[in-house]
């Protein structure tokens, strides 16, 4: 595989040829591998560690048209103290909101956890580059230290990989010091081959994290899709020595699911990636299930919805 310097001008043909040379993904084989990894049985000490780790990896998210400052403030409190009955519970990694609610979020969490903002005409990505860059800059100025952008899926599916690449480069620049997560929207890419290609475009273009989904399209994160992204991250590390993070977002609702993803990370890229700096869950309801399971492990009896906060 030839190495493309992310800062050198990328030719359309060069990028096309590079992507065509990536190994294909056999869908049946990949799905079988993902399922098999999901059968790893985690017990006792490992399970508590896994749940605590998973909590610390959550980007607690609200991305609704109906979001208000009040809603965001409540979620941010929960992000800091997911279980008010047990203050030893770890905080989550970040809160994730629309750009115009970043200031509110920051006012609650100050600098104790990350504030991630979605930008670039999230979720569709259908707007001019200028609009996308402005979206980004405003969010960063308001206090976001992480930006979750969307790639242009229309450009990708029509084969205009250079456009996808150049937009990511431009957004990365607009981020300044903020970390960039690049959402591939795998539910629209459809094939695992596309997921692999999109992962490489994003990594070569300067992403700090590659992220599965906006959560607005089904299917969102799945084990096979995440497996392929982790393999891309692993191969990129082999080639460049650079570690890129992976965020699985949308559709992960239970602790059991979350643990399967941790197993996936562990056996694909290795335990170095089992940290919020390199793996995140984009979720809302997952956090409550993690807290419930944590309570069960620590108290010895099953817990119930009255013992976790709604937000």
């Amino acid at each position, binding site marked *: 595989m030839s190495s493309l310097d992310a800062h050198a001008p990328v030719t359309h043909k060069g990028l096309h040829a590079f992507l065509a040379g990536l190994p294909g993904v056999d*869908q049946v084989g990949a*799905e079988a591998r993902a399922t098999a990894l999901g059968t790893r049985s985690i017990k006792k000490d490992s399970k508590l560690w896994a749940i605590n780790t998973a909590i610390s990896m959550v980007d607690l998210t609200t991305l609704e048209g109906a979001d208000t400052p009040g809603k965001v403030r409540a979620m941010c409190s929960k992000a800091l103290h997911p279980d008010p009955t047990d203050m030893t519970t770890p905080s989550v990694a970040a809160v994730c909101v629309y750009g115009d609610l970043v200031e509110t979020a920051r006012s609650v969490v100050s600098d104790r956890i990350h504030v991630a903002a979605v930008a670039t005409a999230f979720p569709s990505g259908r707007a001019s580059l200028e609009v996308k860059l402005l979206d980004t800059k405003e969010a960063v100025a308001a206090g976001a230290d992480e930006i979750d952008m969307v790639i242009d899926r229309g450009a990708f599916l029509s084969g205009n990989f250079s456009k996808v690449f150049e937009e990511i480069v431009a957004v990365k620049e607009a981020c300044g010091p903020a970390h960039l997560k690049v959402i591939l929207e795998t539910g629209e890419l459809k094939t695992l081959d596309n997921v692999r290609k999109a992962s490489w475009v994003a990594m070569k273009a300067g992403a700090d994290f590659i992220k599965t989904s906006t959560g607005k399209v089904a299917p969102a994160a799945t084990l096979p899709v995440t497996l392929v992204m982790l393999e891309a991250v692993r191969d990129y590390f082999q080639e460049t020595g650079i570690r890129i993070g992976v965020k699985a977002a949308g559709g992960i609702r239970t602790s059991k699911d979350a643990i399967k993803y941790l197993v996936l990370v562990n056996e694909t890229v290795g335990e170095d990636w089992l940290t919020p700096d390199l793996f995140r869950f984009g979720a809302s309801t997952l956090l409550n299930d993690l807290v419930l399971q944590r309570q069960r492990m620590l108290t010895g009896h099953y817990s119930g919805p009255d013992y976790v906060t709604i937000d």
Partner: protein
Amino acid sequence: MMNSNDRLEVRKTHKLFIGGAFPRSESGRTTEVTDHEGAFLANVAMASRKDAREAVIAARTAFASWSRATAYNRGQVLYRIAEVMEGRTDQFVNDIQRTEGVSKKKATGQTQASIDRMVWYAGWADKYSQVIGNTNPVSGPFFNFSIPEPTGVVAAVAPDKPSLLGLVSVVAPIVMTGNSVIVIASNSNPIPAITFSECLATSDVIGGNINILTGDPTEIMPWLAAHADVNALDLTGVTDPTLAKELEVAAAGTVKRVRSAPINPDFEATPTLSRVRAFTEIKTVWHPLGV
């Protein structure tokens, strides 16, 4: 024997048919063949184990291209054999009468049945894989199909009687399925086999695809049964149970497929597909169904 014009007959030398050619036995031996009354008919080449060895080499070489011929092509070749046989009907009738001592009517019946049998198998060439091959409905996202493939080189013993029909019933299914064959013709009634080999030589059969040896099966077959480059045995003409057993034991040395002699066979009746199955291997292929 003098014909009605008192013209001296030009007698045939009956040689082996190996690699598409008619060599004598490397041993130089011949055996005397008599008619049903004991009168001299011909000196026929008596194959040795070295001839058998050469025949295996010729058969294996021909197998490379014959096994890759399309089914349609194989059907065409078999049909051409039938065409050529038809042209030699009188010669076959004569051969059978003299060697088996049957009436002209019976000999004609056997000749016609033999030609029709060849035609029957010719018509099977592009169909049998649709009958004994298929897709398999496996429970998973896989495309799975089973196809019959030729086993390779078959060593066969043709039955004494019916001398032509038995030979054709043995050879046709082996060859139709893409195999090569080395046939030991009937020791007592070899003449029709030799005429048959002349038909093969003048049709479109690849040299070496079908090899016909005249000789003593008790001498030659053990060598073929033990030969590591022979894949299967057809013991149709082996009526001696001691020899049959000896050959089956030798076959175990390389796990050859063995088709035993049928009991009280009726070669005139329409065959089943058992000979087709006996000399084909079922290959099953799996492939995932995914985007």
